[in-house]
């Protein structure tokens, strides 16, 4: 399980630290790649920009995607992930503060696998992160590598 990568797309540094802390607390010690905006996330996935040279076929196990991101927002990132043959099956979990119906609808419409609201309460947040980690890394069957 250790070599499975989690891609965390999150612009808020506090939330990054709290997420990493929550994963750590629940013994999920995988390699977490953090990208701070939508453009960086796409660079990572498609091995462009600063991530040029990365093996594109080496996809993360799951993407934890925030919605409000600088440069390219979460829904657009999702759209591009689903639009490319190489990444169209990649599991994406939208992890966001927003509980606005239109965000949920658009997220699911664009092909998100899951939608999780970030709770304010850290205990609940930590719980949510750990459940996500366990589910997507252990229980879920990822799409077969091409």
């Amino acid at each position, binding site marked *: 399980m250790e070599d499975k990568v989690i891609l965390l797309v999150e612009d*808020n540094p*506090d*939330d990054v*630290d*709290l997420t990493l*802390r929550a994963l750590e607390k629940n013994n999920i010690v995988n390699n977490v790649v953090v990208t701070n905006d939508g453009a960086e996330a796409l660079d990572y996935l498609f091995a462009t920009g600063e991530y040029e040279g990365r093996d594109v076929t080496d996809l993360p196990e799951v993407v934890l995607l925030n*919605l*409000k991101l600088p440069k390219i927002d979460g829904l657009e990132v999702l759209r591009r992930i689903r639009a490319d043959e190489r990444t169209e099956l990649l599991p994406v979990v939208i992890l*966001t*503060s*927003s*509980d*606005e119906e239109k965000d949920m609808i658009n997220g699911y419409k664009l092909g998100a696998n899951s939608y999780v609201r*970030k*709770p*304010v*309460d*850290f*205990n609940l*947040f930590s719980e949510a992160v750990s459940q996500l980690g366990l589910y997507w890394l252990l229980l879920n069957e990822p799409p077969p590598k091409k």
Partner: protein
Amino acid sequence: MRDERKTKNELIKELAQLRRRIAKLEKSDAERKRAEQLVQDARAYAESIVATVREPLLVLDADLKVISVSRSFYQTFKVTPEETEGHNIYDLGNRQWDIPKLRELLENVPSKNTFFDDYEMEHDFETLGQKTMLLNARRIYRETNKTRLILLAIEDITERKRAEQDIKKYASQLEEANKELEAFAYSVSHDLRAPLRGIDGFSRALLENYHDKLNDRGKDYIHRVTGATRRMGRLIDDLLKLSRITRSEMKRESVDISQLARSIATDIKKEQPERQADFIIAEGLIVNGDARLLQVAMENLLGNAWKFTGKIQTASIEFGITEHEGEKAYFVRDNGVGFNMAYADKLFGAFQRLHSTHEFPGTGIGLATVARIIRRHGGRVWAKGEVGKGATFYFTL
């Protein structure tokens, strides 16, 4: 002598003939007088109708010369008969009726199209200023002299057009305001929660990683910080829910509110099955309203009743209908902790509470939400209570 006799007989015959002819003439004369009288009557009748009609009317002949004018035309356009009757319509009032489109319409009425409806004409009239007129025209055919006439009716719709434009303007302003409200609610939803999460998360991190460096008071302070942030999170959530109630579209339909109450009661009991509570729900009450909003209102009212009977051994919660000052009022009654009537007017304010959070949890937004929903349905909501005896909440729809 023969001539005399002939003449006498002939004279008598002629006299009789003359008498008959005179009688006939007298008869036709009377008929003529009657016909004339009828014409006079009809004319007076028509004229009194035309004079009473508020809209200015013109009758033009086929050459567009003014033949008749209604009194209201003179009053509206502030002109005299001398300036109007007998003149060509285009010569009236400084050629103000000489408009190409109008010419085209008018000139077709006698022969081709015979009428036109609702021609809108915007013009700066000499005596009136900028006005919008609505014109309707009909061809009238007069049998007596085989002439074709045009009846032209003019309606001043300037005020109406202005009102329509105002409505459009206000509607778009309202649309604008609603969009701003939506954007605000969205940013609250997103932006305020993130820092709260940081405060809560790092406070706990402090507690966990440095608990050996903190004394009891230090730990207590941190608990207060996390408690406050969690409370603030709930307040934001409730505020957002309340704003959604105001923003959402209302869809009115027939709703079985008894069934609604029953299903909410079942869900409430499931959450705490160990509690003893009786729900008495009146059957077959149907109302006209938005199903979703009514559900939120009933959830709040029944949820409150459940909450405030939490300390009672056997709670009794009733939903039904009654009469109040001649109208139907629905009510939710409980035998719980009740409230002091002196504070009754504070009940429905946002974030107003009559009990401390220790006694009963809550943010104080429930009743404010109910009030807003009932008001959107055009109804009223009020409450009666007694400390220690219970409370009843009434609403009309």
